[in-house]
């Protein structure tokens, strides 16, 4: 019985994006920015940048940093700019040859 693996159903709204590099991350960044908006623009930019720094994994950070700022809302774009300025993410995991160093 081949083919037990179901094909993913096509999304009727493809522009929402289903993966890291596309609309999904933009959507997330904009959504964060929108929820901080009531605090005023400067505070919203700072809070959005901080939120991304604290909760996004490095590949997500790298992807949004490499992405087109114009595709983001102004607050989200400014927040990503700020992150880029801070160099606030570590590109790769530390070399953890855990096997030899783990407790025993």
């Amino acid at each position: 019985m081949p083919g037990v693996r179901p094909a993913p159903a096509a999304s009727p709204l493809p522009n929402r994006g289903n993966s890291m590099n596309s609309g999904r991350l933009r959507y997330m960044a904009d959504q964060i920015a929108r929820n901080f908006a009531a605090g005023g623009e400067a505070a919203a930019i700072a809070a959005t940048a901080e939120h991304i720094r604290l909760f996004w994994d490095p590949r997500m950070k790298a992807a949004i940093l490499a992405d087109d700022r114009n595709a983001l809302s102004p607050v989200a774009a400014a927040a990503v700019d700020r992150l880029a300025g801070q160099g606030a993410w570590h590109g790769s995991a530390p070399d953890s040859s855990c096997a030899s160093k783990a407790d025993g």
Partner: protein
Amino acid sequence: MGYERQPDFGTPATGSPDTVTLRIDGRDVTVPAGVSVMRAAALAGSAIPRLCATDNLSAFGSCRLCLVEVEGMKGTPASCTTPVAEGMVVRTRTQRLEKLRRGVMELYISDHPLDCLTCSANGDCELQDQAAAVGLRDVRYGHAGENHLGLSVDRSNPYFAFDPAKCVVCSRCVRACDEVQGTFALTIAGRGFASTVSAGQAGDDFLGSECVSCGACVQACPTAALQEKTVEDIGKPERAVVTTCAYCGVGCTFRAEMRGQQLVRMVPWKDGKANRGHSCVKGRFAWGYANHRDRITSPMIREAVDRPWREVSWDEALSFAAGRLKAIKARYGARALGGITSSRCTNEETFLVQKLVRAGFGTNNVDTCARVCHSPTGYGLKTTFGASAGTQDFDSVMQADVIIVMGANPTDAHPVFASRMKRRLRQGARLIVIDPRRIDLVRSPHIEAAHHLALQPGTNVAVLTAMAHVVVTEGLTDEDFIRERCEWDAYQDWAGFVSDARHSPEALAAVTRVPAETVRAAARLYATGGNSAIYYGLGVTEHSQGSSTVMAIANLAMATGNIGRAGVGVNPLRGQNNVQGSCDMGSFPHELSGYRHISDASVRALFEQDWGVALDPEPGLRIPNMLDAAIDGSFRAIYIQGEDILQSDPDTAHVAAGLAAMDCVIVHDLFLNETAAYAHVFLPGSTFLEKDGTFTNAERRIQLVRKVMEPANGPDGQGLADWQVTQALANAMGLGWNYTHPCEIMDEIARLTPAFAGVSHARLEEAGSLQWPVNDACPAGLPIMHAEGFVRGPDGKGKGRFVVTDYVPTDEKTGPRYPLLLTTGRILSQYNVGTQTRRTANVVWHDEDLLEIHPSDAENRGIRTGDRVRLASRKGETTLRAEITDRVAPGVVYTTFHHPGTQANVVTTEFSDWATNCPEYKVTAVQVTLSNGPTQWQEDYAGRAAGARRIAAAEPGE
């Protein structure tokens, strides 16, 4: 250890700190004020005969077996209804009393079958004990009169039987159902000798009645009239071990009563501080899944998911898994690996899984199913109060005057706590329900909500902002509290924001659909009604503004000073048994145990030293991000302990695609669950009965789980508890762990986590349970948090913070094609995705998921109750049967998600909470139409699932 019933003192404790001294049978005894003479005697070690009294029910005084003589009182008062008084002189054994008691007993026995020797309660029957206690020797009345001896046994309930012939009409069961459970299902029908216990209306049996099978009546029954069927089948238990229920976040403790290696029954433990001797149908009865034939007890592997499974040894499975993990790590880097900890497993097991991922895999890609339920609670309460946890213990509800229940359905999802809450409501506390659906609490026997805010799904923040508007603009805030304990500037920003006319109930009624007057009345009641407490559930968190809603709740509690003492507080009702614990244990990708951020170098250093390995300072992926990354190809291997993400997570097709894209999926579970269809390695799990450890319930209470039988996943004595399996996988990867008992893991947790510094299995054994934090500042734990002040910031001394929560409507919108809003929930008899409860007799109460729809919406569509309907959203569609009810408002439909055949999550969307990515389960725009059969997905599903579950015959050489 032999088997004994828990001691029964006859009538309840009063908890009074004052004492009274009286003389009983010539001995002076000192007891708490207000207790009965019966309890005083029992406390002094001399039991007075009794039949209608038991100490979890208030005294009733009907059987007259407990008569005593009291100096200065006429006649022979019943000791169960006579309170003690200073200097009282009581005699419990005189000739007159003995004679009277024998006479009473004789009457009872004359109406009772004399087949003790063959009765399943033989040796465990209070009637026998009391007959012996009063020295009954013969029965003069014969068995002639009108009685119950001919009535037939009611076996309709799957777990217990009612034999009216053995009933002595003490009405303990009726009172247990009323007082303890609060369901009012039983009555005494008929009079005199002909009277008998009846469930519901005449002609109803237990199953057909309102009975919710909590078991309180069975526990209360002094004879075999109400008895667990397992006692009949297996025999009397020989030993009892106290352990903790593994179903919901109430965390009831039970005596697991055993006969050899066989569990006979689970009896709620009266000393359990979470349940106080009560239980629900799941913990009490639904444990049969542990021996269900579907349970997989052998490790299995397969090269690819379209191949059949091959049963192999532990060694082969573990080295296969470790080999794949290492190869993927070598090729794609550590961040291509990850794991999911389980909120059903113990703290110790959860801690080990995240340790394996962080220290062994070398990445922070670890998450837990709390992601999809209470992650917004963690974020919201940490931001406002400084601690990611509920503020109260359950006992606190008994001092509440006003109770808000928001987005929770406690009578179904947290039944034992709901019974406590209902008891308080019957005493007169006032109730405000904020929920799109008319949950049972809104109107049930002797309970009626003061206000039901039946809001439009997705407008929680708007409703709470409108309530805050009322509190601030009508001057109902507690300014002293705010000035003393909260950041004043942040408060002023917030107060200014909510006072804006845009946020008045009148302005927001357009979106919330709650009449402004109702919002105003509810806000006034909450702010001025005395002690006000908020209890909330997943209807708060599982929204695109879940975190905002939690913070809006916290704002309201701070503004009215309803924090920091008994009877008030903000209380998340946790779904699974160990959601609190799995969050505490560092299951989230951005924080180590005790909610400390991974980027904090000093915290990391602590762990790095202890574990001897460098940790990644960057947060890892959350579950939805893992699936996204899998589709992109940058995430390739996952170890999933005790979770069924394919069924429990939203947007099933997306989850399936993510799993299908991975090179190594390791599922560690009891059953070949839905997720296992995509797995390459299956590691058989162990049940909570088969291991030691701890769970932490919704009130931060850490309780011991004790092994009562050997794990079934290996030959006798060689089965492995889940923590041992994780350790074996770690060792297959070369980590060299050597824990010999979970208590050593707890010692490590305590060493590395300040809030757990004082916790150890030995301490728990001694204290029964502990509510964290347990450390030098609170050596005995902390039942109520923030009594002195809030605990924000690194020093834990920061003031409470008001956070402006702007209502942002969800992007999931209704429109002409999808005009209805779907919201989801759960019901009493089933648990989560039902992997366990579907494999028990609980299916008699719920054998399929139904779609609740309002009569007007149904009529428009020509739908009648029982019709099969198609439920379609922008993401997908499924079919199920409809139930027409006005519990839901027009425009709203509701279903549960307990059955894989329904796959309600095929239709839910990928929208999620802005702060935590907790999925928005509670709002999906849908259309409902008549349908004539299952969808293609459902039809394919059955075939696919069967295919993916094939296990090769045990021949060598596959």
